[in-house]
């Protein structure tokens, strides 16, 4: 029997991932959340900030302040932390391609608050590799991007020793469909890639390198299969310990510890019967807290309305209270590890470790994680896993309550309020942000800005650590867009493999899919040529899962599919539709910027003489917007509750038929 320890375990850091509208609105929210007992901050930036555009850039239109806070310059960063004393704060920033820049702004803000940067505590996510695989906010090609990651690491280890310079993320891999084995393998391969790069950069001596090893932290996911997820956390701990001691020769047990934060699974949170998400979230939280030996250091939870839209302060409060009940009401923190010695747990941990090691070797033989990403291998593996997951839901083998079973429900009072149960960002916010940006630009010394930017360019070209010149830029009043533009010119831009070129997943599949295949073929014959679809992802939105799965399914039922990945402009999409002679355009938009983008695309189509081409859209589309879009001529709208991909495909055939004067089949599959 494990004895009760004399001192209880300390509770983990409790955060909510938040930010929206503007720096000052987000500051207000943060101070309110801290007042409610939240113990750290987790900043969500808007997509222009994450992809290196100022709020007034054409590509930022409709995205400013939507899914996070816009930070254009030092003034915004100062407003974000107004009256929040940074020396006492633990701030996590979900920032990647522009991580050196946002860290530079944070450091400069601290200086201006009179805080010594060496005291700062917190985390920059700064894990670029998973951006190519899942999260989508990369800018530059992998090689220079890895260098920027290592620059942040070497800088902070020397100057901000308590900072977590990189959070190696398996979280986003699970959100893109990864199995536990894949999460383990790809996250650990990423960690060794980064550590190897730091070691080989020649920027540090052996002692500093040992310190770096101890600063590597992880950001992990916990899904609904919470026993297996507990085992995964234990597997992570065991494997990391081994890597640290064997690969890097670091033997201090404190430096070998697998330190991780968590956001629990959101992919499995549903639009139908959204109240069920609460129990999912709580069970998932158990996975990362039950085992003391593998307990999370920091947790942030999604809200019950995850699949509906952005959470309101009350929704986030509910999620925070879940953590507080577990930590402070239950006896969880009073015990030592309750799984030690369990042969069942042990056996599954071993199985996961073996699976992960095999996959890690496969990546290593391809030359490492960077090569396996560039070749498309890892992305294909993820898309394959996600496809398998969706097919299992389709077949009913994977049960999701309220979605593919127990669908009957009484109307929910949660969603019947006047705001439909989600947060809406005021459309005026974008204009105000642009005005304040322009005023800021007018107020600074252009000469200082130019000098700072040219120092940045030199550092980028010479291989000097990018942090010093970035801090100089922050002080001079450089903007996010200017900083990024300099690096875009030096490093170039990148498009990642889409991973949809996987082998067919329609072997021995449902008769439904076969029926649709006949309809696709017959319609193609009637219209003279095989049916073609363009799947388009306009705007800065990086949510690619839906588009990928629609593309794979479309191919599997016989469509010819054109899909060019994320972040295309309306013009690019319409050009591709024209050049490829497609029969229908399907857009996928989850970032909330659908209204503006659809209007732009409709306009471009008209100019290209393609006004008659049917347009459909899928993603996070609130009901009010759906009505408006339909009035604009959108033929169909799909949201997360439309999990039956065969039904969507059957619809698409009928939409094409109607647009071409053919009778629709109209029968359910």
């Amino acid at each position, binding site marked *: 029997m494990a004895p009760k320890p004399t001192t209880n375990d300390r509770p983990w850091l409790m955060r909510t991932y938040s930010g929206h509208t503007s720096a000052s609105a987000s500051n207000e929210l943060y101070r309110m959340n801290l007042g409610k007992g939240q113990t750290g901050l987790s900043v969500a930036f808007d997509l222009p900030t994450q992809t290196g555009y100022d709020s007034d850039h054409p590509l930022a239109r409709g995205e400013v302040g939507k899914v996070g806070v816009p930070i254009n310059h030092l003034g915004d960063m100062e407003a974000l932390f107004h009256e929040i004393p940074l020396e006492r704060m633990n701030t996590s920033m979900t920032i990647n391609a522009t991580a050196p820049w946002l860290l530079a702004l944070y450091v400069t803000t601290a200086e201006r608050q009179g805080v010594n940067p060496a005291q700062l505590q917190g985390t920059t996510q700064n894990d670029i590799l998973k951006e190519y695989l899942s999260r989508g906010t990369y800018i530059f090609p992998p090689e220079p991007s890895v260098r920027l990651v290592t620059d942040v690491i070497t800088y902070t280890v020397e100057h901000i020793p308590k900072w977590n310079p990189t959070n190696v993320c398996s979280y986003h891999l699970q959100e893109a469909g990864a199995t536990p084995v894949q999460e383990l393998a790809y996250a650990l391969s990423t960690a060794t890639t980064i550590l190897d790069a730091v070691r080989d950069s020649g920027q540090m001596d052996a002692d500093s390198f040992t310190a770096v090893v101890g600063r590597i932290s992880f950001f992990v996911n916990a899904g609904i299969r919470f026993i297996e997820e507990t085992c995964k956390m234990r597997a992570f701990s065991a494997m990391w310990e081994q890597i640290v001691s064997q690969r890097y020769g670091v033997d201090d047990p404190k430096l070998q510890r697998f330190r991780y934060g968590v956001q629990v699974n959101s992919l499995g949170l549903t639009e139908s019967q959204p109240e069920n998400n609460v129990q999912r979230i709580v069970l998932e939280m158990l996975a990362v807290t039950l085992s003391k030996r593998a307990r999370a250091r920091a947790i942030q939870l999604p809200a019950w309305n995850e699949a509906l839209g952005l959470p309101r302060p009350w929704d986030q409060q509910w999620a925070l209270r879940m953590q507080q009940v577990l930590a402070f009401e239950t006896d969880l923190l009073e015990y030592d590890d309750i799984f030690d010695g369990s042969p069942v747990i042990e056996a599954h941990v071993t199985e996961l470790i073996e699976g992960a090691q095999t996959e890690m070797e496969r990546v290593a033989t391809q030359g490492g994680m960077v090569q396996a990403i560039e070749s498309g291998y890892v992305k294909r593996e993820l898309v394959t896993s996600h496809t398998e997951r969706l097919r299992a839901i389709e077949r009913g083998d994977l049960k999701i309550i309220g979605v593919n079973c127990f669908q009957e429900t009484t109307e929910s009072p949660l969603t019947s309020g006047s705001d439909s149960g989600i947060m809406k960002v005021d459309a005026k916010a974008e204009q105000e942000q642009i005005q304040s940006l322009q005023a800021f630009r007018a107020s600074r010394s252009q000469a200082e800005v130019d000098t700072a930017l040219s120092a940045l360019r030199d550092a980028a070209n010479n291989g000097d650590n990018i942090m010093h010149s970035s801090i100089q830029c922050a002080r001079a009043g450089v903007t996010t867009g200017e900083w990024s533009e300099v690096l875009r010119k030096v490093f170039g831009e990148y*498009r990642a493999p889409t991973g949809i070129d996987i082998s067919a997943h329609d072997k021995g599949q449902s008769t439904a899919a076969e029926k649709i295949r006949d309809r696709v073929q017959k319609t193609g014959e009637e219209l003279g040529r095989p049916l073609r679809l363009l799947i388009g992802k306009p705007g800065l939105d990086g949510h690619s899962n839906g588009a990928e799965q629609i593309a794979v399914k479309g191919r599997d039922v016989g469509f010819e599919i054109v899909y*060019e990945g994320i972040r295309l402009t309306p013009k*690019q999409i319409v050009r591709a539709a024209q050049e*490829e*002679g497609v029969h229908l355009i399907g857009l996928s938009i989850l970032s909330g910027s659908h209204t503006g983008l659809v209007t732009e695309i409709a306009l471009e189509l008209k100019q290209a003489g393609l006004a008659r081409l049917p347009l459909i859209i899928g993603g996070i589309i609130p009901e009010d917007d759906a009505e408006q879009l339909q009035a604009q001529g959108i033929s169909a709208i799909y949201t997360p509750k439309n999990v039956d991909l065969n039904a969507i495909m059957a619809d698409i055939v009928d939409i094409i038929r109607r647009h071409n004067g053919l009778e629709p089949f109209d029968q359910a599959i």
Partner: protein
Amino acid sequence: MTTVSDTLPDPAELASSVAEGKRPALATALNLLDDRRPEARKIAARYLALLAGKRQATRSHLIGITGPPGAGKSSLTSALIPIWRNRGLRVGILAVDPSSPISGGALLGDRLRMKTSFDDEGVFIRSLAGRGEQGGLSAEVWPMCLSMLATFDITVIETVGVGQSEIDIAKMSDTTCFVAQPGSGDSIQFLKAGIMEIPHILVVNKEDMGAAARKTLMDIRAATGREYSGEEWSVPVLSVSSTQGSGIEELAAQLDLHHDWLATRNLIEPRRRQFQAEWILKRLRQEFGSFGVAQLQTQLQTAHSGLDRLIGEGDSPFEQYESLRARLLTAWNRD
């Protein structure tokens, strides 16, 4: 209900607009050439005949790029585009991807690699699925190329170099360029054994991979190395990196050289005429078998070569083709 013919374009108008280089017209033409309905085929043949009448002042170079999947054909094309664009040349690309043998569907993924073309009016990319032609190029490819050649200075066909398509593309392009990647032993074996027709230009891509790339380069040079007589085109073996951009200028120069080599010998037109005839005969053979073709020869009282010439020298070979086809169909229906 709309009928087919009112959605089909007017062939004369279409031919003029395509010859003038109008993008929407080219898109319409490509859709038409893809259309298998009898009414559409007739209009398509007329359109091609009218288009052939409009001589172009373009440089008009048809380049076939072939090689195994993943060798970097799309990346290489993408790297070539800016070089041509900087010289003011307009570029059309026809990218052929394999279809799923099970569903008949396809993922047309080559565009993704050709990102340089995104906002450039001087570049036009059309993808095409292989559509189960036993590894060969589908029937639409040749007429589509003709349409592109009428509009662009350079037309590139990219196809996966497996099976029949390898031969098909060589029997179509002015210049065939084969792309190999480091460690591709198969290609070398095929070259050695003479299974693979020797292309006009051999490229080893991914030279940034170092030793492996150098070894493949040497192996290929050894497999193809021979003395060329003054009369022959001597096949260059080049080393490039599409992602780093090295060797691409040299490749562009070699492509030019080969075009000039053909042009100074007045070979471009005759080769294209011959390819066209062979293409049409092949189509007839695919549809009606050797028996059908033999029957045609008897009917027309001509030998194979006569049939060849008939198709090759008429002013509108595709109309010829449609009428030969019609002849066979009626003959067969009578029996």
